[in-house]
């Protein structure tokens, strides 16, 4: 997506509570022109509330939302005219698909003939033009969400707010809609604010990802930045890292630490003084398996442990292995590699992993972090 400089929409010092429980406490968030920003976090993290605040559909208890640098009622009116929202469970008025798709245009006073033509065009783009005359009650979940997307896109919005648009769909419909979302947003150069608890959706679609927990943004950055350099244990965990390795720092040097894991040492990225107990985050796909008798001398990989396969789980073209060495490890290899190595329970393997693929975190959580510029 063609991300350009300059915030289109921003929120500063946003606070929102319900019955004494803080739903959102975001110090700063911004959506840039033409980008797709995904706010990613588990259910109940405050994602939808944040969307409603930024879309100016709900007022914050404190803080301010600015659209194109302006705030207050004029900005709210301008944002309403320039944006559209697709909710997780969109409401449709009991009428035809065509009525629902054209509703936003009717509310804006667009002449009926023009509204009809625009509705047809956008429905063709989303391959739902055959549904135009159908009553809304007869749609499947996937079709309904597509109609909701058409109803938003027909407004030709500058900003498209998407609140878990694929959450209630089956796998095929989810992938189809995700593909269409990406294609249409690219074609129209629409700025997209996407809320999702789906890691794949956030990391594959978005230009930038903001990780949210308990209403607070933990880390914001490009998917690569967050994936490769998670700010804390939480971010590492929600981005798919495993945390089966723990130990104590024995040496610290230049953002690298050496960690004693009991019978072996691992070098990892991290900042902690010697003696600090740490957990090490790693991604199962970063572990490289090989026969235990191959000398590591020629490899640049600094970490090597020998482990025994305890459990093998086939997952289509991939195999997930649980290994027992000085610590428990989880590895993900391709089916071909697993067959070649003959990994079955009881087989010993050498596990290699680059130091830069390991992230050591102190046991105590750390605060929010903004990754480098995107």
């Amino acid at each position, binding site marked *: 997506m063609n991300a350009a400089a300059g915030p289109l929409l921003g929120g500063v010092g946003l606070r929102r509570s319900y019955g004494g429980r803080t739903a959102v406490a975001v110090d700063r968030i911004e959506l840039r022109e033409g980008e797709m920003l995904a706010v990613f976090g588990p259910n109940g993290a405050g994602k939808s509330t944040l969307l*409603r605040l930024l*879309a100016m*559909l709900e007022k914050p208890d404190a803080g301010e939302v600015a659209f194109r640098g302006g705030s207050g009622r004029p900005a709210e009116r301008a944002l*309403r*005219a320039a944006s*559209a*929202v697709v*909710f997780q*469970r*969109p*409401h449709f*008025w*009991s*009428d035809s698909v065509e*009525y629902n798709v054209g*509703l*936003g245009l*009717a*509310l*804006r*006073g667009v002449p009926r003939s023009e509204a009809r033509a625009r509705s047809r065009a956008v429905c063709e783009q989303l391959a739902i033009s055959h549904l135009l005359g159908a009553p809304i009650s007869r749609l499947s979940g996937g079709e309904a969400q597509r109609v909701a997307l058409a*109803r938003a896109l027909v*407004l030709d919005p500058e900003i498209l*707010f998407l609140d878990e648009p694929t959450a209630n769909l089956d796998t095929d419909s989810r992938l189809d809609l995700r593909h269409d979302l990406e294609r249409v947003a690219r074609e129209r150069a629409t700025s997209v604010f996407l809320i999702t608890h789906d890691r794949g959706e956030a990391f594959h679609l978005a230009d930038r990802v903001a990780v949210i927990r308990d209403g607070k943004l933990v880390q914001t950055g490009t998917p690569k930045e967050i994936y490769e350099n998670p700010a804390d244990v939480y971010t590492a965990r929600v981005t798919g890292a495993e945390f089966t390795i723990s130990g104590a720092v024995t040496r610290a040097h230049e953002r690298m630490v050496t960690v004693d894991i009991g019978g072996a040492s691992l070098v990892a990225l991290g900042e902690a003084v010697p003696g600090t107990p740490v957990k090490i985050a790693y991604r199962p796909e970063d572990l490289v398996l090989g026969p235990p008798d191959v000398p590591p001398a020629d490899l640049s990989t600094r970490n090597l442990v020998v482990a025994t396969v305890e459990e093998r789980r086939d997952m289509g073209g991939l195999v997930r292995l649980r290994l027992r060495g000085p610590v428990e490890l989880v590895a993900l290899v391709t089916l071909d590699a697993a067959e070649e190595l003959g990994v079955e329970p009881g087989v010993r393997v050498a596990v290699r992993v680059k130091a830069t693929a390991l992230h050591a975190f102190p046991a105590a959580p750390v605060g929010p972090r903004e990754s480098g510029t995107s």
Partner: protein
Amino acid sequence: MDPLLEALRLITSGDLYVWNVILRSLQISGSALLLAMVIGLPIGIAVGLTRFRLRLPVVAVINAGLAFPPVVVGLGVFLFLSRAGPLGDLQLLYTPAAMIGAQAILAGPYIAAVSLAAVENIPPDIALQARALGASRRQAILLQLREVRTSLVAAVAAGFGAIISEVGAVMMVGGNILGETRVMTTAIVLETRRGNFDVAIAMGIVLMLIALCVNAALLLLGRRTIRRGQIA
């Protein structure tokens, strides 16, 4: 002749007395219904859509209106309009205006209560969705009401049902004066007492048909509004 057959003959032959009473009934109850709608619908919708401090007592008062005994309402209107009453100078007692007032008081709470119940159960996500689509405050309210239009029509039908078949209040404030305040219900009471069963049955049949037709028409009207989609 069989009173039933005679009743049918009175209806189909356009008997002047019977049709005079029927038309007067429609005129009075129609006007009362219109008045009750103009007052009851906005009250029910406003209370249903808003949250304010004294909302609960207000809802309780509106719902209490459903249990107003018609004769008590008639008595109240009678006392207000009687010569010694606060509005005695208007000399409205025993006129169609008094009957319209009494019937509106009876129908209003029905319309307000049923519309309130329908509106307060509108899911909040409808208003949110409407606003997200760019609806103004007025448009958002109309879009919410669109989703409960059948219930709103039912509210009006309930109000109509409460008055078209009512006899106590209209008898007290109207006086059952021929050509002036005699309506179907009061005529049925009178003609039955006189032993004119054919006339009473004729009025009864027409009353039932009117109740059926008006309710059917209101429901059809509700559905047509859906099709036309007049929201803005």
